[in-house]
């Protein structure tokens, strides 16, 4: 314990001296630089799970955007763990970043880590997931979408496509996770009374579990007994679609809908195995976040909220999204 503290003190001293040194060299070069005026900013980014393909894609886009803007990103991964999230935030503060972009893991539990940033006097920006209602975190802006809207759009699409209503199988993500709960509540509140959810399973966002559970569900309900499959994300929808295809019932089930708009989902819509998805433009959100933070650091005023819309992808417009 003692040893560890000593090590971290040394590390902090080292980091501080490194900052002083780079500060000096920056100052020197700034006077030489004709285009001048731009200070070198370091922005800390805490992503909730870098193993998630969509978020990995988002980080790539953020790094590209940072390069364009001329700022440096320090990306940390909270690995879906609140304790690790707090550690990552503290490490970024130790490195004396100029601002922190945080993607909170949990609407309640992550407030602690967020307030650590604010106590340190570092401006905080929230990306893509929101704090629970009544949260007391004085962040500068929120950049992202409202997951509830994804569920609302899935339901509106179904209400329109199947005016007679029908029987729905629902593939839920991870109960208790904010993305699952918000998408699900948006759907539940918007779907009309002609529809009935005849089965619901938790497939934890994975294609594997989506397929396994759907295979069982297809054994339970014969042809004509399911009209639509609604999934909280694309991987589960692809798994379900694959089970439907293996059972030779692709035509029998009218709609298979996901959320995210990942490349494999776009391909599945082109192949007629899925019928729709709602694209959350993660890359766009990340890029926007980097731009907002940079303009804030340059002294511009920023808005409280930047919400980016979802896009509905169906057979009609899928070609625009194919890579």
């Amino acid at each position, binding site marked *: 314990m003692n040893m560890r503290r000593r090590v971290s003190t040394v590390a902090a001293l080292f980091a501080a001296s490194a900052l002083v040194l780079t500060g000096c060299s920056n100052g020197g070069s700034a006077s030489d630089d004709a285009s001048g005026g731009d200070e070198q900013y370091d922005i800390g980014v805490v992503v909730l799970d*870098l*193993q*998630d*393909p969509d*978020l*990995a*894609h988002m980080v*790539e886009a953020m790094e590209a955007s940072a390069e364009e803007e001329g700022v440096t990103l320090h990306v940390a991964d909270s690995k879906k763990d609140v304790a690790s999230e707090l550690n990552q935030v503290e490490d970024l503060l130790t490195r004396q970043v100029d601002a922190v972009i945080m993607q909170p893991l949990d609407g309640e539990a992550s407030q602690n880590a967020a307030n650590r940033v604010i106590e340190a006097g570092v401006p905080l920006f929230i990306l893509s997931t929101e704090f629970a209602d009544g949260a007391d975190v004085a962040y500068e802006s929120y950049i992202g979408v409202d997951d509830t809207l994804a569920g609302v759009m899935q339901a509106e699409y179904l209400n329109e496509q199947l005016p007679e209503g029908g029987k729905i199988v629902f593939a*839920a993500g991870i*109960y208790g996770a904010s993305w699952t709960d918000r998408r699900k509540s948006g759907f539940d509140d918007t779907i009309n009374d002609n529809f009935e959810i005849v*089965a*619901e*399973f*938790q497939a934890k966002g*994975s*294609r*594997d579990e989506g*397929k*396994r*559970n759907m*295979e*069982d*569900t297809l*054994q*339970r309900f014969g042809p004509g007994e399911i009209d639509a499959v609604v999934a909280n994300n694309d*991987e589960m929808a*692809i*798994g379900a679609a*694959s089970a439907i295809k*293996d059972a030779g019932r692709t035509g029998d089930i009218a709609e298979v809908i996901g959320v995210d708009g*990942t*490349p*494999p989902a776009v*391909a599945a819509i082109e192949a007629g195995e899925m019928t729709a998805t709602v694209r959350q433009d993660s890359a766009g959100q990340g890029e926007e976040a980097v731009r907002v933070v940079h303009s804030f650091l340059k002294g511009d005023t920023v808005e409280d909220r930047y919400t980016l819309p979802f896009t509905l992808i169906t057979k009609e417009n899928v070609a625009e999204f194919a890579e």
Partner: protein
Amino acid sequence: MSTNTVAVMLRETKQDGPSPAMRVKHFVGDYGILIIFAIVLAFLSIAAPNFLTLDNLVNVVRQSSIIGIIALGMTFIMITAGIDLSVGSVVGLAGMVFAILAPSSGNALWIPLVAGLGVGLLVGFLSAALVVWGRVLPFLATLATMAVARTAALVLTDGQVVSGLSGPAEWLGSGFIGPIPVPVILFIVAALLCDFVLSRTKFGSHVYAIGGNEESSKKVGISVNRVLFTVYLIGGGLAAMGGLVLTARLDGAAPTAGLTYELQVIAAVVIGGTSLFGGVGTIRGTVIGVLLLGVVMNGMNLLGVSSYYQQGVQGLILALAVLLNRWKSD
């Protein structure tokens, strides 16, 4: 159905004048898990109208075959009193290597197959090297290789999903030979081979001997290191095979594929009567453990049981099986 030799030995040493109570105990001890399996099957046949159909039974066995293939390797390792926590990560890594190579290599299916199995063997080799040469506890050694293999799977594609395989590659997961799905055939063939190796060969008897007592195995001249290396290679190879079948079945690989598979596999092997302390276990038991868990998951879906309860029921079965094994050996 024959029981494993160690159980029989235990039973014979304790059997001086078997009372009726003892006989019941032995019967339940030896056949307990089969009895539970039979009760579950009977219950589901009555309660779930769609359970006892050929279509659904094929479905259950196909779903179980991936966990089953991996569990066969785990049985070898656990009989030596080891454990392999890396199998879930190997599923992810081998599946990823397979998916990356499968579409581009056209007809030469052997390239992705060999590469996928190769990385599984490599991870098995690393685990064994840590256990045998490094003298690291198997739990910790494979905790390390679990992390390394998962990282490799993530780094390979920068966390992205690889989707869309060539037709022949997909056949491995979705194809049929006659009426039987390919994954089921692979599971059956692997199970028969493993059963033969474990129960009929000298190597198999060495696996039991090491789990029973490593020191005395050395004294009687068993090459303990070689046997341990072999079981971890078998475990890694079979986990990789599970990963290839899973990737083929899903027509794509996610770097997170196989997450927590190690827990399901260990649960199935333990339910099948293998002891965490080594020396005890059979392939037949493992197959029953795998099928029991598969049937229970399928049955709950057919009955429309909420996902909230599903893990709890698996946990109950695990607890019941462990208590049964404990009671048997007391």
